[in-house]
């Protein structure tokens, strides 16, 4: 019924079915930390090629409210593909012709230099990337932004560097939505991909669950219990305006956007058991997708829009299935394990991430769809809500690690993990947004 955990058949439709972590959260209510404490990057994992990069302080950075060079460096490290070369005490800018021999001697293969200055409507930020080995200028960018966008500029610089060096598009300037529970207060946050700069989109004394980004990254669909029952809303992030999409008899839950943004797949129990429906994202009459003899929920569209992956217990235990986006016969996808939930499909369509229950724990699994090979990529056992980065290289998920609730990112092979920690209390239901235009 909720996107959280697969519901049991006997549960009441309108009652939120939370994972046991809600209970734990109450019992372990942490002492209040600053609400926006710094997210830390803790990278684990070895044996991978990492590009050594030096990012000295940008000239003039000291007088700006954000340390651009530090944000860029933390982004790159979190990707798992870079390691930082110490550049403390140095200050270069984009006009400097760096002494590459000195930097290669320190072990740097790349060097990013820049400057921050007041100007225009806020700040001028400029930077340049150097290949320290070849002594080659790899280009640069300049931005004029209001103070509020300084972090965004840092993420864009990190994206530029990431793409220049790895050849793949970076995801640092994208956003992540997640939900926290502090005491009895639920808050839906929209944060930068490093978890910083979190802006509250909605706060409620009743649960908020299943936030999910629209394909254009302008709206969030979610389920709110503010009217004491699960109701689906679509929320415009920039204006805070929202509209009610599904408020039918019974429960309304687990919204999922079609890739063209025109349709939402939802779980409704208005005609009895929990079943899948599609509904125009502008609102309207739901259309039933299938008739099944079990509970169907947690729909998610494949990125080509042809299929809807979902969870069903039609085979006696929750498993992941897929069905044509217009309905028809469903095909079972997961076969290992007797309890598989929370499917997420990578944007490149190659990988399925989901949660399996095994030995009393909930573990993130990654399935290569072409070969059906499944790998377990975490050593934690309270994993939930996986969601892919738009470049299909990382998965964000919620878990419990070292006795704390945390959002983690992992590479698909599980070798590199980074912890986005900082919000106190329960933190869960992350959803990674699309590339920003």
């Amino acid at each position, binding site marked *: 019924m909720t996107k959280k955990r697969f519901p049991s058949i006997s549960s009441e439709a309108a009652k939120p079915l939370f994972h046991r972590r809600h209970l734990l959260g109450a019992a372990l209510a942490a002492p209040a930390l600053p609400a926006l404490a710094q997210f830390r990057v803790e990278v684990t994992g070895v044996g991978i090629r990492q590009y050594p990069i030096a990012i000295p302080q940008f000239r003039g950075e000291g007088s700006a409210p954000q340390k651009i060079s530090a944000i860029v460096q933390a982004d790159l490290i979190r990707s798992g593909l870079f390691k930082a070369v110490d550049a403390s005490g140095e200050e270069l800018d984009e006009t400097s012709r760096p002494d590459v021999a000195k930097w290669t001697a320190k072990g740097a293969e790349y060097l990013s230099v820049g400057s921050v200055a007041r100007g225009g409507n806020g700040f001028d930020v400029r930077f340049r990337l150097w290949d320290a080995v070849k002594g080659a200028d790899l280009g640069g960018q300049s931005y004029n932004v209001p103070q509020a966008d300084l972090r965004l500029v840092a993420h864009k610089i990190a994206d530029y560097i990431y793409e220049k060096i790895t050849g793949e598009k970076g995801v640092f300037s994208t956003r992540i939505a997640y939900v926290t529970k502090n005491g009895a207060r639920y808050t839906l946050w929209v944060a930068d991909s490093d978890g910083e700069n979190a802006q509250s989109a909605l706060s409620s004394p009743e649960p908020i669950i299943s936030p999910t980004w629209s394909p254009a990254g302008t709206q969030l669909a979610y389920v709110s219990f503010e009217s004491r029952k699960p109701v689906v809303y679509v929320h415009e992030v920039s204006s805070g305006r929202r509209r009610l999409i599904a408020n039918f008899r019974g429960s309304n839950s687990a919204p999922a956007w079609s890739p063209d943004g025109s349709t939402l797949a939802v779980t409704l129990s208005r005609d009895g058991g929990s079943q899948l429906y599609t509904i125009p994202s502008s609102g309207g009459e739901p259309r039933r997708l299938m008739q099944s003899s079990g509970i169907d929920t947690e729909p998610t569209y494949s990125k080509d829009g042809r299929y809807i992956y979902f969870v069903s217990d039609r085979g006696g235990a929750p498993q992941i299935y897929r069905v044509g986006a217009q309905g028809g016969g469903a095909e079972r996808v997961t*076969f290992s394990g007797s309890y598989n939930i929370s499917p997420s499909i990578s944007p490149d369509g190659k990988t399925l991430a989901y949660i399996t229950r095994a030995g009393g724990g909930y573990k993130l699994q990654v399935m290569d769809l072409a070969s059906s090979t499944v790998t377990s990529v975490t050593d934690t056992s309270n994993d939930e809500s996986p969601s892919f980065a738009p470049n299909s290289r990382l998965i964000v998920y919620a878990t419990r690690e070292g006795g704390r609730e945390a959002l983690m990112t992992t590479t698909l092979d599980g070798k590199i993990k980074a912890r986005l920690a900082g919000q106190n209390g329960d933190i869960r239901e992350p959803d990674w947004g699309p590339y920003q235009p």
Partner: protein
Amino acid sequence: MILTRRTPRLIALAALWACATAAQAALFEDADARRAILELRQRVDQVTQGSNQNGEDTSQVRRSLLDFQSQMESMRAEMNKLRGENETLRREVADLKRGQTDLAKGMEARLQQFEPVAVTVDGQEFKADPAEKRDFEAALGVFRSGKFADAASAFSGFVQRYPKSGYVPSARFWLGNAYYATRDYKPAISNFQQILATAPQHMRAPDSALSIANCQIELKDTKAARKTLEDLLKAYPESDAANAAKERLSKLK
């Protein structure tokens, strides 16, 4: 209604009216009244009975509905379990099929190592086992490298190992040549002669005859050599070897 001075009078009027009604009732016959009462009682009894019956019927229906519902529920659970098993079985069958195809493909690839392949050597087309082909080509490689003693033992081993092989005439030809090169003329001659005896139409036959003559010349058996060359000219007049034979004959004279 507001209580006024007039209220007592109203009450008195009502009492009067009631008395009048009672007097009127007394006008009915007692028997009629009794009968009407009995009828009514009977009707009430009937209704009560009917209602009890209905109640029983209803709880009966309710019980069977509940029963039916629980049966439905257990059938649904049973059906889901079977569907799950069916899904798993179908998957296993698909896996087995794929496994079998892979196995068959692997087997095919392995069998191919042993299956005869079509080869063309010295204008002869025939089927040879991969091992046979490999051994022949290896021996020929040794010959080409100029190690004639090794080539002789390689080719004689080949002829012994594959006496029925399509390669035999060619193998004997190279064996003969290997012996010739190592000045072992007698076994050379016998190999060339076997070619002429068993495969007179072989492309190498005229060359074999010429080689026999060469061996005989080396053995100073001029007479035999002349005879061999003359036979060659008769048997293979159109061959390149025939031209060489004519030249040799003229030198022998």
